[in-house]
């Protein structure tokens, strides 16, 4: 079995949904690894070990970013929200409140865009 985390019977899910699950699971694992490495960096009193663990921790951040980007390319709603919040400088809650800025890409599904995006993998 590819993953133990499916919540619905496998035969009710298409391949795109299973791939999405794989990516989400992988992203969770990368973020968890970052947290664990970070705690070990803070806990050890050996500076050379801390340096190695910090290097490994930051390597996981690259993995997490790559997986997040894979998900973004296939999820228009996630794409719209990442575009809305990432790389902004205002207080985050103010960015969220100012969502109706007239750009279809930033609109939630139901406010104009049908949120269809990529269908690659939907017909396997």
């Amino acid at each position: 079995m590819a993953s133990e985390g499916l919540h619905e019977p496998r035969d009710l899910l298409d391949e795109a949904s299973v791939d999405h699950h794989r990516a989400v699971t992988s992203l969770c694992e990368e973020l968890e690894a970052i947290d664990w490495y970070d705690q070990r960096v803070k806990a050890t009193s050996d500076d050379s070990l801390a340096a190695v663990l910090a290097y490994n921790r930051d390597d996981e951040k690259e993995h997490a970013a790559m997986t997040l980007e894979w998900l973004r390319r296939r999820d228009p709603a996630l794409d719209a929200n990442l575009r809305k919040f990432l790389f902004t400088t205002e207080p985050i809650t103010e960015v969220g409140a100012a969502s109706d800025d007239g750009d279809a890409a930033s609109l939630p599904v139901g406010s104009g865009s049908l949120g269809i995006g990529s269908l690659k993998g939907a017909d396997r």
Partner: protein
Amino acid sequence: MNHLHRDLAPISDTGWDAIDGEAKGRFTTYLAARKLVDFSGPNGWTHSATNLGRIEEISGPSEGVTAAQRRVLPLVELRAAFNISRVQLDDADRGASDIDLEELDEAIRQIAIGENVAVFHGYEAAGIQGITESTSHAPVVHGEDMSKYPTAVATAVDALRQSGMDGPYGLAICPSTYTRIVETTEHGGHLLLDHLHQILGGPLVWAPGVDGGVVLSLRGGDFILDSGQDLSIGYLSHDADVVRLYLEESFSFRVLEPDAAIALRSGT
């Protein structure tokens, strides 16, 4: 409010849910190209052109100055208008779940076919070169005998592989041929559909607007649909009887690797 002006439409949240839900469900069936090519975006309504990374030399503005102009592929805006009966919208507010959205359904079909045609066969007025126009391979010609169709598909897959185009491979296929494939069983009672899946390693996609068939590599990075505004529904006008709405999207399409697809054509 944005340029779609949905807030001006005399449509309740329930009505919009019915319209958007109907559109999303049907688009998933009709949008064949998106099942096979890479989708980039959506980059928003203000995204106007795709960067080609190329320049065109032009004469300089003054002596001793050379100049070049960036080349871009402008996005095309597609729009299909339709009417919704206000009586039907009132019924939706009363809880009816079977309201008549026939004009919406036809607009969905039309704009989806437009996207499919632009991707697979090109759209000259918009400067879009389609997959069958760009491919470096001669088409594989097959006869009417469906028992020989797997040979044609295998020939196409082999040509892609010989060119270094890795799989899995997908097949976009016109509705009439798709129906004949689904209806056909081979020797031993095996479905032709299953046999083709084994050859391709990827999907057979029912593709309205496609002429014949197209086999293409699904390895990624070869075909890019650059979306500005993804398919959306906007408001035009209304009177006492109908609300006039429209479907809209903006996009460009590029073939980055002409070796990665091959056309199938019926002939003798």
